[in-house]
C-alpha cells in the first residue's frame, strides 16, 4: 500500500481524514495529515518527506488543498521523484478514491488522471427540480 498524505493550510487535512474515515472506516487509519499553521514554513515538511522518499521505494501520494498555495508549491517539488505523486484540489471524492485505489497497490499516473476526472464530475450545482429518466433492469 502507498503512503497517503493529506496536506492543507490549517485543519482541512485532519478534518478530511475524519470525514473519509466515516465512509471507509479503518481503511483510512494510515492516512497521514499535514496542517500548515501560522508561523510555519511548508518547506520544512518538504525536506522531511524528501528525506523519507529518498530512503524508501514506497510510493507516497500527496493530496494538497489548493493549486499554487504554499503547501502545494513546496510539496510539488517532490514529484520529481519517481515514487511520489502530488495532487492539488483535494476534495472528499478525490480523497476517497485515492485512499481506495492506493490500497495494496501503487497508484499509476493514468489511474490518477481518471480519479481527477471523476472528482470533477462530482462537482455539480442544483437549483430547482431536475428530472432524469428512471433506469430499469
Amino acid at each position, binding site marked *: 500500500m502507498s503512503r497517503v498524505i493529506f496536506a492543507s493550510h490549517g485543519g482541512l487535512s485532519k478534518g478530511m481524514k475524519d470525514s473519509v474515515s466515516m465512509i471507509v472506516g479503518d481503511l483510512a487509519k494510515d492516512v497521514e495529515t499535514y496542517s500548515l499553521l501560522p508561523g510555519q514554513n511548508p518547506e520544512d515538511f518538504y525536506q522531511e518527506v524528501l528525506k523519507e522518499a529518498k530512503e524508501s521505494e514506497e510510493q507516497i501520494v500527496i493530496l494538497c488543498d489548493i493549486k499554487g498555495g504554499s503547501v502545494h508549491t513546496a510539496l510539488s517539488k517532490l514529484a520529481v521523484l519517481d515514487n511520489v505523486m502530488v495532487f492539488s484540489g483535494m476534495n472528499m471524492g478525490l480523497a476517497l478514491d485515492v485512499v481506495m485505489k492506493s490500497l495494496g497497490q501503487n497508484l499509476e499516473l493514468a489511474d490518477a488522471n481518471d480519479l481527477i476526472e471523476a472528482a470533477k464530475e462530482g462537482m455539480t450545482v442544483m437549483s430547482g427540480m431536475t*428530472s432524469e429518466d428512471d433506469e430499469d*433492469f
Partner: protein
Amino acid sequence: MIKLLRVDHRLLHGQVAFSWKNAVEADCILIACDAVMKDDLRKTSIKLAKPSGVKLVIKNMDDAVNAINSGVTDKYKLLTVVESIKDAERLCKECNINKLNLGGTKATAETRNISKAMNITPAEETILKGLCESGVDVTIQMVPEDSPVNVEKVL
C-alpha cells in the same frame, strides 16, 4: 444474483454507494422502497448518490419482488437496499434470500440500540428472531471494514 441485501434507513449514501459497491463488486444497485417511489425529491437525491459505473434501479416493494423473482436481475451483481427490517423480511421470504446485512436504522422513542447504528423496535426484534430461526444469516455491519456481528448475539 443478489450479492448483498442491506437495511439502511438512509438507503443510498456514501457508505453504501462507495464501500459496499466496491466490497461486493456490484454492477447494479436496487433500491426497494415504497416511500421513495412516491417522493420525487427523495428519488432525485438518491440518484445523486449513484457511484459511477453502476446501474441504479429504484422500485416499490411489489415491483422489486416481482423483478427479482422474474429472473431479469440474474445477470447483475446486485446490491439491494431497503429502508426497514420489515421490508427486508419481505424480500428474504418472497425472494428466498438467506443473508441479510443490517446497516443502520434510526433511533426513536420506541427503539432500543443494538449497535453503533442499529436501533430496533420490539416488533422488529421479533422479526429478526424469526428470520434467524428460519435460517437467514443476519449480521450487523455498517461498512465492509467492520467485522460482521451476528445479530443473535444482541437480541
